[in-house]
C-alpha cells in the first residue's frame, strides 16, 4: 500500500498535518475537533443527511462557504473553520428540523441538538416561535431518515430496506420477500448503527408494520 503524502490544512487558524485524500470529517474527529454529527459513520462514504457537520471553507475568492464536512476531502491548502455565527445558525436550523422529527428514544440525541441550539442563540431564555412543520408525515417520530440502516443492510448483502416516497411522504420501508422469510431478524445490524435508537430489535419490526398504515 502506498504511503499517502502528508499535507497541511488549516482548521480555525491552526495548521494540521494530515494525509491527503482522506475524508475531512474523519480527520477532524481524530484530532478531537468538536463537530456534532448524527448520520456520520467513520467507515462509510459521505452521507449529507443530518446537515449538522457544517464547516466553512475559504474559497479562492476569499469568501467563507458553508459545506458538509462529511462530503469534503483533505486537499492541499484547504482552509476551514468550524465555528462562526453563520455555521451556528445553519446548524441551529438543522437541529430545529431534526428535533421536529423527535421524540427520540436515545436521550443523547435531543441533548446534542439542544446544545447546538443553545450555542446558536445569544439569549439563553429566548423562546423559538413554533414555526417548524411536523405534521402529516409518513415516517413515525423518532427516525431522522438518515439511511444508515439502509446502507448497512445493503453492505451486508441482505438489501431488505429502502427509501419510499418523496417530500413529507418519505419513509424507510422493509421490503418483504416471501421466498426468503428468514432474511431479517437475526443480524440486528441496523439497530446497531441507528443513531437515534429508533430500531430496537430489527428492521422488519421497525419498518414493515408501518407500510400499510
Amino acid at each position, binding site marked *: 500500500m502506498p504511503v499517502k503524502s502528508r499535507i497541511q490544512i488549516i482548521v480555525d487558524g491552526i495548521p494540521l498535518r494530515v494525509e491527503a485524500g482522506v475524508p475531512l470529517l474523519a480527520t477532524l474527529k481524530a484530532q478531537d475537533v468538536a463537530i456534532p454529527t448524527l448520520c456520520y459513520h467513520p467507515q462509510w462514504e459521505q452521507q*449529507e443527511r443530518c446537515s449538522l457537520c457544517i464547516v466553512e471553507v475559504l474559497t479562492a475568492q476569499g469568501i467563507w462557504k458553508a459545506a458538509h464536512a462529511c462530503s469534503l476531502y483533505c486537499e492541499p491548502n484547504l482552509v476551514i473553520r468550524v465555528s462562526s455565527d453563520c455555521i451556528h445558525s445553519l446548524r441551529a436550523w438543522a437541529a430545529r428540523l431534526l428535533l*421536529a422529527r423527535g421524540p427520540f428514544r436515545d436521550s443523547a440525541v435531543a441533548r446534542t441538538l439542544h446544545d447546538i441550539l443553545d450555542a446558536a442563540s445569544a439569549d439563553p431564555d429566548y423562546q423559538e*416561535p413554533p414555526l417548524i412543520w411536523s405534521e402529516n408525515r409518513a415516517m413515525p417520530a423518532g427516525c431522522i431518515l438518515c439511511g444508515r440502516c439502509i446502507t448497512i443492510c445493503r453492505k451486508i448483502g441482505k438489501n431488505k430496506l429502502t427509501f419510499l416516497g418523496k417530500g413529507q411522504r418519505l419513509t424507510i420501508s422493509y421490503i418483504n420477500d416471501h421466498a426468503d422469510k428468514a432474511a431479517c431478524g437475526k443480524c440486528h445490524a441496523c439497530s446497531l448503527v441507528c443513531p437515534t435508537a429508533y430500531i430496537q430489535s430489527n428492521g422488519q419490526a421497525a419498518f414493515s408494520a408501518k407500510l400499510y398504515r
Partner: protein
Amino acid sequence: MLSNRYTPDSRLNLDSPEIKEVLRRIDAPPPQTVQPQAAAKIAAFLANRYSLRTIPLRLAELAEEGHHQLCPANMSRISVGVATCGQAAGAGFRSILLSARPDFVNDTMVRNVGCLGACFAEPLLDVRTPDGLHYFFGQVNSKNSIVHWSIIHTAQKRSWHRGIWLIMRERQPGMLTGFGDLELEKDYTGYLGTFLEHQKRRISGNCGLIDPHSLPEYVATGGYFAFAKALLQLSPAQVLAEVTASGLRGRGGGGFSTGEKWEIGAASRDAERIIIANADEGDPGAYMDRALVESDPHRVLEGIMLAAYAVGARQAHIFVRHEYPLARASLRRAINDARDAGLLGNNILGTGFLLDIGITQSAGAFVCGEETAMIQVLRGNRGEPLPRPPYPAQKGLNDHPTVINNVETLANVPWIIAHGAGVFREVGTAGSPGTKIFCLAGDVPSAGFIEVPLGTSATTVVEKIGRASPQSVKALQIGGPSGGIVPYSDFFLDYTSVSSIGAMIGSGGLVVLNKNRCLVDLVHHLVGFMADESCGQCLLCRDGLATLKHMLAILTGKEAKPELLIAKLEELSWAIATLSRCGLGRSAVNPLLTTLKYFREEYNAHLDAICPAASCKAMIHFEIIPAHCTDCENCSLLCPVEAITLGPGKGPERYIFNHDRCIRCWTCAAICPHGCIQAVSGGINACEIAHSDNC
C-alpha cells in the same frame, strides 16, 4: 436491409447538367402565374441551400414524397393542429369530421399536424390552397360549427370565406420549408398576425405545419440534410467546433455552454459515450419540450444524431416525462421511421456510423429532470441526485461519459449545422445567441408557445405578442418554480440580463401576473410544490421547505403572525439554498428571495392582515359599490352559503354581507352583471386578527 446500402452511384450528382438547369430555374424570379415549383427537384434545391455536395438517394426520394404532401400541386391541404393542446380544445373531433368526407377524395387532403403555438386560438386549422395561400381558422371547436362550411368551401373553392382569422402567403408559391417561408397576407383578427409576426421561428419553424408522424414531410423541409452534411462532409471535430462557435447554451435551465459540455464528453478516454435527451420538463406553466417533441420529433432526433456523431456516442436515450403519452408515441414512431429509412442503426447513410436511440419514461417526479437523478432512474434506481463533481459528461450512466442536453438545445443543433454558426449568431446577444422558446402564460389574452430571439425586451413579449395592457401587469415569473418573480419592466430576456435581476431563464416559462395576484400566496403555492417534489435526501430541502410552506401559510392565513416571521423566512430560505445537494433545493427558494427583494411591502402588509392584491381568502371581504348596483338580487340568490341576505327597502343598502358565513368563493363577484361587487382587504378581518394577536 436493402435501403441501408449506399453506393456512391446512388447519390445525386449536383454537377449533372439536368440538376444545374433546375437550380438555375429556382434562382430565377418566380413566374407571375402560379406554378408548382419543380417539386421533383426539391432535394436539389435544399442541398444547394445547405451546401450539401452529394445527396443520398433515399433522402432525395423522401424529400420529393414529402414535398408532394406538404405543397400538393393541384389539391388543397387542411392541416388540423392535434397536439395535446389542440386535442384538449376539440381538434380531434374536427379532424375526424373533415377526413371522413367522401367529396375530399380528389381535391383536398386532411392531415393532422402539431401545434403552431397559439394556445388562445386552439383548435387551429390551416387550409393551404394550391396557389400557396394559407388560410388559418381559429377556435374550430365543436361549438363553432358554422365555421365548418367555411373550411370546406375554402378548401374546395380556394377562395376567401367567412370565419378566416388570418391569411399567410408562401413567399415563393409551392415552396414551404418552414414558418420562415410564410409572409403575412391579411390579418382579420388583429392579433393572431401580431402574435406570429413578432416571433422568429427557427427551431419551432415546422411546428404546426408538418405532420409529426411523417418522415417525408420533415425531410421536405430540409430535415436530415444537416445530418447528411455532417456525416458525408464534416468530421466530428468540425461539428463540435461549429456548435462551440455558435455559442449555443443549454435551454433546459442552467444555460451551460453546449459546445463545452460536448467537448468534455468527446475528450474522454472512455470510448463508450452516451447521449441523453432530457424531455422531462416539470415546471408548472412550461411545455416547450412537449410542443417540440409532439410537433416535430424528427428535429429532436436529428439533433441527437448530430450530438452522437460529434461526441462519438453509439447509444442515445430520450428521457420523456410520464405525463406526455402523445410525445412518447410521436417519438417512438419517429425512431421507427428513421430506422426504416436507414437513418438509425448500423452503417448510417453508408458511412459506417452507427447509433440507436431508446426511450425511457420518467416516473413522474420533478427531481428526475436533474441530470444525476436521471442517470439513477435510467439505471433503475431511486431518482435521487448525486453530488457533483464528477459531472455526468465525465462519468455518468454506467460510469461512461454521458452528455445530457435538453431536447430544445438539441433541436437547435441541426439548424446550426445547416446554416452555420455565423448565421445562428445573427440574432440574439453576444452572450446568448440564437432564439429561445418561451411559454407565455398567465394573465395575457394571447397565451402560447413563442419563439423569439434572446435579448428581446420583455415589453415586446408581454404587450405585443401577449397583448397584455401594461398598466395591469405587476410582475413576471420567469423560469418556473425555481426561477424568480420580478417586477414587470423593460428588461431584456437573455441569460445575463435575467440572472442580473435575480431570476433565471430556466426552461422558459414566462408567467404574467397582474395586479390581482397575491405574490405571497403564489410563493406559498410554489414552495409547496417544491416541498412535495423534494426527493428527501437533504434534511433542509425536505423538512426545511415544508416548514417554509407552513410559515407562508401562517402569513397568508388567519393565524396570529409571530413578529420575527419574515426574518425567519429569510434565514431558513438562505439555509436551504446553502445546504441542499442539487439544483432543486438550491433554487427552490428563488421565488421567495426575489419577492422579498422586490415586493417586500406585500409581505409586511400580510403581517398586518392586509392583502394588497385582495386575493388571500383569510384577509378579504366583499362589498358592493353602490353606484353601479341595479338591485337585481342575483348575488343574494346565487350565494351558495346564503351569506348575502336582503334587508327591507330598495337599493344596494339592503344587501347585508355576513362575513363570518362567507366562504370567499368569489361567486357573487363573478356573477354580478355590473361588476359592482369587489373584494376588499383589511378592515373587518384585520380587527379580528388584531384581537387574537397575543404573540
